């Protein structure tokens, strides 16, 4: 698969900051890949997201080195609106995502499409599709200011999906949702990924990361410390030193091994844990 995101020796220092927020970051993401970026708060995850969609350097000013290319286009030389044809970001704080320039959720959803000169007919088609996908059909006529945190988060997702980007960047975007609401959104993301959309997701829920990611990228103090498959990354025994915790599935594998109940195999997903526990019971 061809690379769609190419970050090369990239560093960025916010204006007035003394130290770079991200430093010497190199990362290649291939078309259709599901990448999860994890790390402690302050590790540089959100800065990386902003750099991918061009908000850095076009909106946040500072000093950058190295390069970020999206579908071959250098983000420093491409406008945020042109980049948004390929790559969409769902913000960490959904209240920062909505324009609130519109009176209704439907107008909020079509804001980006209007700016692109998409026909009204096509707008209607996409609003219908996205509002069904995000279960916000009943909110279309509501004032965005009157929505709950969870509802705003769904609208924020919708306003990104509706632009039909090939690459989705999700920055801890389900923090306001109840557990099933969050799983449901991740199921949608997984479906989009299965249909060929590239996903780059920042998340603190390690069980979810282990379940979904093709590649896990661990950031610490602005740098990438580890990158590999969930199995490779979560096999690292002192993972806590990077400010993250192993999934409970991995802790269970290790607990079973310590008690002499397993031979040290590592289960990193729900299904693998289930199989492992059943094997223990059968022997």
């Amino acid at each position: 698969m061809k690379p769609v995101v190419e970050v090369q020796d990239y560093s960025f220092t916010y204006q007035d900051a003394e130290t770079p927020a991200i430093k010497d970051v190199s990362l290649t993401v291939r078309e259709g890949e599901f990448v999860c970026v994890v790390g402690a708060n302050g590790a540089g995850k959100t800065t990386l997201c902003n750099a991918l969609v061009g908000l850095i350097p076009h909106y946040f000013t500072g000093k950058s080195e190295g390069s970020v290319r999206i579908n071959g286009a250098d983000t420093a030389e491409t406008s945020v609106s042109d980049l948004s044809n390929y790559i969409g970001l769902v913000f960490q704080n959904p209240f920062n995502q909505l324009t609130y320039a519109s009176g209704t959720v439907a107008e909020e959803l079509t804001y980006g499409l209007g700016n692109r000169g998409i026909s009204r007919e096509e707008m209607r088609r996409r609003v219908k599709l996205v509002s069904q996908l995000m279960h916000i059909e009943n909110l279309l006529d509501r004032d965005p200011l009157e929505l709950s945190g969870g509802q705003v988060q769904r609208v924020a997702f919708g306003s990104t999906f509706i632009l039909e980007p090939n690459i989705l960047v999700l920055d801890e975007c389900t923090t306001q949702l109840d557990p099933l609401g969050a799983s449901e959104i991740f199921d949608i993301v997984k479906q989009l990924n299965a249909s060929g959309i590239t996903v780059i997701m920042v998340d603190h829920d390690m069980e979810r990361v282990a379940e979904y990611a093709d590649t896990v990228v661990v950031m610490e103090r602005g740098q990438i410390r580890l990158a590999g498959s969930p199995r490779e990354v979560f096999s690292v025994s002192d993972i806590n030193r990077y400010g993250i915790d192993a999934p409970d599935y991995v802790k269970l594998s290790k607990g079973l091994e310590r008690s002499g109940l397993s031979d040290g195999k590592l289960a990193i997903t729900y299904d693998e844990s289930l199989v492992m526990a059943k094997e223990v019971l059968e022997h």
Partner: protein
Amino acid sequence: MKIEFNNVGYSYQSGHQALHDINLCFEGDQSVAIIGQNGAGKTTLAKQLNGILRPTQGSLTIDGTEISERTTAQWSKRVGYVFQNPDDQLFLETVREEFAFGPRNLGVDEATIDSRIDKVAALTGLQGKLDVHPADLSPTEKKFCGIGAVIMMDPDAVVFDEPTCGQDYVGDVRLHDLIAELKREGKLCIAISHDMKFVAANFDRVVVMCQGEVLLDGTPQEVFSQVDVLRKSYVTPPPITRVAQGVGLGKTVLTVPQFVETLEETRAGLVPLLKTSAINNNHYEIVGHGGQSSMTQRKNKGNECQ
């Protein structure tokens, strides 16, 4: 400290009724998690606890005194409320001033305030940040600054709205230690959370809300064993609990050590192995949205005040 809800209902001015006929009692040094779907009434319930919102039906008493008899400012020295978004709470120039503001307004002497600042700074991990402007703190630090400012008033009860939201691993560990310390000091801790691992690891009692009513109320073991009822409020048990349920272990486990122990007991024939259904416990089919699913009301009278 004893907070009693007697048939409490609450309607917003728009006419939307967010709470229906709530009967609950929070008492002593309990740690209580309030969970449930978006819009279930969790924050509305929590805001009743120090009178930020007041019942429109029924009555709420704190140590026997009707909530209506005092102002929220008066109650807030007994019941501290930590907002979900620290930006809604913080407004002073430094962390130290944020910490000193509450107790100083309550007339606490400066020497006591200073000693509390040392203690609370250690608990919140903000020792080196006392002279920093709250706006210059990281999101995690800001959250702990908001928590610290409330604990500084030494309330008998602390209410947290989504304390783990946006927290990382280190923040989760710090919150765990902080809640344990508050419990040691005999304080009532009540937290709203969507993070089931956090709930299972830190709380003695779990109240599940659904459409403005209490759906379940019990120990984490009792509550997380009721998978089907939980689903009505869009809640799933923590991952490790779901694996145990998928295997059919005859006990509800909440932690990895409990899982290993229960597996050993099951092998030894001390714990029965239940038949598991064919449904994949890791994937839930969702029916009905926006809280329109039908549900049966469940109440556990056992947790109401005697």
